[in-house]
């Protein structure tokens, strides 16, 4: 069985590497996409997104030309799915509805018929985007505040609630950084953009990020009076081993569902599910391999101290 407490050097190193990699991904993304550590979608900055399904094979350059002819310089044109899906995604600036209509008509005549029933387009004014971005920031703050309140509530009867709280939050932050890093990486590799759904996934990850920590800490609290005389490290490791089955079993079940959606679900929902999957995996890791050993490092010395005094 893994000794979660004794292997803490190894775990801290892994966590350090993951954080470093995430920061690198965010930095590279910022360099590549003019300061955007995550590629921002039209939800937050305004613009137009077309997903166009053509009835026949079409040329990327022809699509691009239609946009340029309509005054949309520098549209980002990408193929979606397999070559024979004939589905293309185009991102460009905000367009009035007449403009959208004109572009679609021009695509029909100059590129190939756009199958309207299999296509979609979405245009957002920059000012709304800015407002949504504000709400998003508020939502992240609210979620973090809620998690803080929740931690305070859960540990209100523990001797050093402050330490348990700080350690849980540290684990949550590591988790968020890793999740963001993953998305930045996918932004670089696959062009994934941070949209309202990404934010939903991130908020969900934040919300779930302290659950495992709380279950383990709950058990530590319960085990301290039961196993008086044992070193703190041993109590903690016992508590982790007692709860690890539950953590893994629960994670596995959530993962079964998420992997199924990733494999068989539609393409539009994939980034959303992937973020949640990575967030939950990293949550299990940060709970067991970061939060718990951190607590031991901090609390352990005191505990040994008081124990020594008690026997003296």
């Amino acid at each position, binding site marked *: 069985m893994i000794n979660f407490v004794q292997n803490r050097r190894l775990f801290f190193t892994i966590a350090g590497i993951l954080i470093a990699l995430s920061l690198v991904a965010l930095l590279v993304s910022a360099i590549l996409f003019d300061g955007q550590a995550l590629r921002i979608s039209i*939800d937050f900055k305004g613009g137009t997104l077309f997903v166009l399904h053509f009835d026949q094979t079409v040329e990327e350059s022809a699509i691009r030309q239609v946009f340029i002819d309509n005054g949309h310089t520098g549209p980002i044109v990408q193929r979606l799915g397999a070559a024979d899906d004939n589905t293309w995604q185009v991102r460009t600036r905000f367009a*009035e*509805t007449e403009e*959208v209509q004109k572009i679609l008509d021009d695509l029909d005549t100059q590129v190939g018929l756009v*199958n*309207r*029933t*299999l*296509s*979609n*387009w*979405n*245009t*957002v*004014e920059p*000012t*709304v985007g800015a407002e949504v971005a504000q*709400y*998003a920031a508020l*939502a992240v703050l*609210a*979620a973090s505040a*809620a998690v803080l309140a*929740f931690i305070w509530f859960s540990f209100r009867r523990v001797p050093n609630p402050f330490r348990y709280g700080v350690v849980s939050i540290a684990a949550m932050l590591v988790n968020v950084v890793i999740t963001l890093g993953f998305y930045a990486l996918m932004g670089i590799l696959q062009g994934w953009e941070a949209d*309202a*759904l990404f*934010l*939903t996934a991130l*908020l*969900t990850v*934040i*919300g*779930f990020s302290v*659950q495992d920590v*709380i*279950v383990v800490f*709950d058990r530590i609290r319960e085990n301290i009076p039961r196993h008086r005389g044992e070193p703190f490290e041993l109590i903690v490791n016992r508590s982790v081993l007692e*709860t690890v*089955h539950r953590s893994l*079993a*629960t994670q*596995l*079940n*959530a*993962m*079964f*569902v*998420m*992997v*199924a*959606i990733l*494999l*068989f*679900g*539609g393409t*539009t*929902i994939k980034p*959303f*599910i992937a973020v*949640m999957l990575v967030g939950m995996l990293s949550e299990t890791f940060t709970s067991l391999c970061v939060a718990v050993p951190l607590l031991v490092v901090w609390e352990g010395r005191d505990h040994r101290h008081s124990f020594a005094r008690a026997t003296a």
Partner: protein
Amino acid sequence: MDRRTIVNFVLILLLTAVAIYAVVWQQHPAWLTNLLFWQPASSRNLDFQLGLDLQGGLQVLLVADLPEGRAVDSQSMATARRIVESRVNALGLTEPVVQVQGSERIVVEIPGIEDPAQAVDTIRETAMLEFVTPPAGVTAETLYTIRQLQMPISTTYLMSEAEIQSVSAMTDVMLFQTELTGGDLDSAYVVRDPNTSQPLVAIEFKSEGAAKFASYTASHVGESLCIVLDKRILSCPTIQTAIPSGKATIEGSFTYEEASQLAVQLQYGALPIPLKIESYKAIGPSLGAQSVEKSVRAGIVGLVVVFLFMLIYYRLNGLAADLALALYVLLNLFLYKLVPVTMTLPGIAGFLLSVGMAVDANILVFERMKEELRHGRSLKRAAEAGFSRAWTSVRDSNLATLLTCAILYLFGNAFAASLVKGFAITLAIGTVINLFTAIVVTRTFIRLAFSAAGEQIQKHAWLLGL
């Protein structure tokens, strides 16, 4: 076996039967659906409501477009909403939604629409003024009746040749020929009739419109020309002489307020507040159908794996949990129909995710139960201890999920992010139902099994996954 367990069991069976009836059967008698008093009276049913992303459609976010410094009052927002709604309803599509969002926005959602461009035109339309020639053979009395009853009429405006042909072929439709429209107007203002001092709306055409108007009136002296606003006849004056000036007045037995309102409408559009399209989203209907199909398939695969895992890992307890989980899925679908919850793609994902999470409570309990058994407790004692000791953890983790849902819901509600809202709602409903199925239902099943066959189970420890 105690009475409470049996009563619980019977109640669970009853609930299951009701849910199966509501979810599996497609048709439900009217007297039953009429009991759903919280749903709007016009559309009480037990059907799944699909969101725009699943059935395709159009979402338009309109924002008040006022000059700097002029505030939007809620009264005019409400009026604007009503007008937009009546226009959208005029398109004759099923269940459009028009809502005021915040202080200055209106969201329009039109599911399943084939031609979003036309709908957008209709929504944006300002007061649509038309000068039309009545169809041949229509008497003045008929025109008067149509006007008195405010019946909407069909005009050729914006119709293609083919449409005009096919509509003219219908004997029961009167098609009015549009000669000029509000687009030809230069200005509109209130004047008083010099003889009766009755308020009138004076209009002036742009030069091009004036020329058309002059030639039309010259060739139709003695005939009726109807002035139509938003497809409703205002008046049908008879052309006395040719009018070359490009000026005319509209009579309509107005009060002064009505006349000035009409003048403003003609000049600036019928809405009390000019609206601008801020965001516009069109989703092809077949795309939605594909998404539904894929999500359902993904969901079934995911669920089967979860069911198998629980069964293999927790054996008999797993079976109880699987039964509870099946009921969980059923009750969720039941509530989606009952409330009703509009299903979106993220909503389905939220639901599926909640199924994965739903077993968490069971797992907490079963792991506790195993520990108690290893410590040599009797089967029944271990089961009860498992449920009562795991309760705080179960409660805490579900509370945290509900908190997250509340934040997501508020965020989704703040602007038109119905996708975010959909996810939050399904996850929240799932969490609440889960507390019921994972604790009450599973415990009832396990108590029943243990009282019926406790000794045999105790002998075969593998049944409990020990």
